[in-house]
């Protein structure tokens, strides 16, 4: 005789109810925003030159930031995962500063740094950052990279060091072993790290506002657009841009979830 189906216990039912309520709240937020405006209004907002510039600048700066973050996160994540050295806990804590510091404060710190002799020297030696597009990227990178480092560290923690050891006994240097054996196995983690940095950068507002300004057609990115449109009472345009950001964020989330499985 087939056994009767097991009824979930009140314990699991209550946990499911809490999770369900939270999901319902998130969904309600998205549905309310999505149905607030009409497709015509949306298209009209997206047709504005300033907003198109802001979309293009956001996509460009986020992509550059994601790549730069990955360039930093791979070596630093590897170092933290594999090396033991005195003061490692302090280094780990310091690398989390951009994650725990209020974003606006981070922007202020950047602004102040570039008022000092060191900051001015960096600007003379490279490119001007304060109130420029380079400043947008630097502000995004400061925070996005910290998240990418965290992701890469977890990735390398999960990959055994043993295959690298074997590769070294087979004639590789440590660098060759990492390049040929570990990095190909860390592809999924690298994709996730770049995506996290990209998504964080897309939503970055405070530090960009303080450090790079909110000049239309110059340093305006999507969160700046939402703020500028709201400040002049143009709610439709703010909603349209917000929806675009929601779509981008969901796209990244889906890509990390599904494509990440394949990479």
């Amino acid at each position, binding site marked *: 005789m087939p056994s009767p189906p097991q009824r979930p216990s009140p314990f699991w039912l209550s946990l499911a109810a809490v999770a369900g309520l939270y999901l319902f709240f998130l969904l309600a937020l998205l549905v309310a925003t999505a149905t607030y405006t009409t497709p015509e209004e949306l298209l009209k907002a997206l047709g504005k030159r300033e907003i198109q510039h802001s979309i293009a600048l956001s996509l460009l700066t986020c992509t550059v930031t994601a790549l730069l973050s990955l360039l930093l996160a791979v070596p630093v994540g590897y170092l933290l995962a594999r090396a033991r050295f005195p003061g490692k806990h302090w280094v780990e804590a310091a690398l989390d500063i951009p994650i725990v510091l209020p974003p606006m404060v981070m922007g202020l710190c950047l602004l102040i740094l570039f008022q000092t002799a060191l900051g001015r020297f960096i600007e003379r030696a490279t490119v001007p950052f304060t109130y420029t597009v380079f400043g947008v990227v630097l502000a995004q990178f400061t925070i996005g990279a910290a998240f990418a480092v965290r992701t890469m560290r977890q990735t390398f923690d999960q990959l055994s060091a043993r295959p690298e*050891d074997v590769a070294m006994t*087979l004639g590789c240097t440590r660098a060759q072993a990492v390049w040929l054996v570990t990095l190909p196995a860390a592809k999924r983690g690298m994709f996730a790290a770049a995506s996290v940095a990209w998504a964080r950068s897309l939503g970055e507002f405070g530090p960009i506002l303080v450090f790079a300004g909110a000049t239309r057609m110059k340093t305006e990115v999507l969160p700046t657009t939402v703020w500028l449109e709201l400040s002049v009472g143009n709610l439709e345009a703010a909603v349209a841009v917000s929806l675009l950001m929601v779509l981008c964020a969901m796209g990244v989330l889906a890509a990390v979830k599904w494509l990440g499985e394949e990479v």
Partner: protein
Amino acid sequence: MSEQPANSGQQSARISFERVAWSAGTFRLESVSFAIPAGNYAVLMGKTGCGKTTLLEILCGLRRPADGRVLIGERDVTALPPGERGIGYVPQDGAMFPTMTVREQIGFALKIRHWSAETITARVQELSGQLGVAHLLDRLPQNLSGGERQRVALGRALAAKPSVLLLDEPLSALDEELRDELAALLKRVQREFSLTALHITHSRREAEQLADVMFRMEAGQVTAAQTKVCGG
């Protein structure tokens, strides 16, 4: 499987530890000295955590001893990088390269050494035939069984014709039947390829099956446990 000797011309080499010392935290190896005669199959036994793997890693060059010397043949290899010691290393569970096919794993050491593509192909074919993995060459490690993985790890270690084979509990993750089969393969390969082997285990049965010379590790020291008359 081919039964013909494959590594003609290869010289087996004596392995010597001379007053090797190493420490980390409260764990220490002090003045470890022992030698494995050339062409012998040595088994090193000891409880988990007694330092067997550390000793093997010192021989591999993955850890630098605080004091003492390691010799392979007449050569002092203490300061040499792992890849220049002429060793083949098979760790526990195989430690396969996750994204490489069996063909790429076995040919890896040869590619690093810039052998020509034809020579690599020929060597991979030869070894995979001898180890019974010729039908698995295009598979990735996640599609291999435990026994297959160890055979591939063995092939990968032997590809560059080492004089010394180091095995860290290579049979511990296998079931009994496979264990006997692979133990026989290890012994055959060691004889045919004229290798000096150092095999770490905590299984007495495995040691009795394989060892020409047996060592025991206890309290940071290695002592000779038993010597069989070398039969071949």
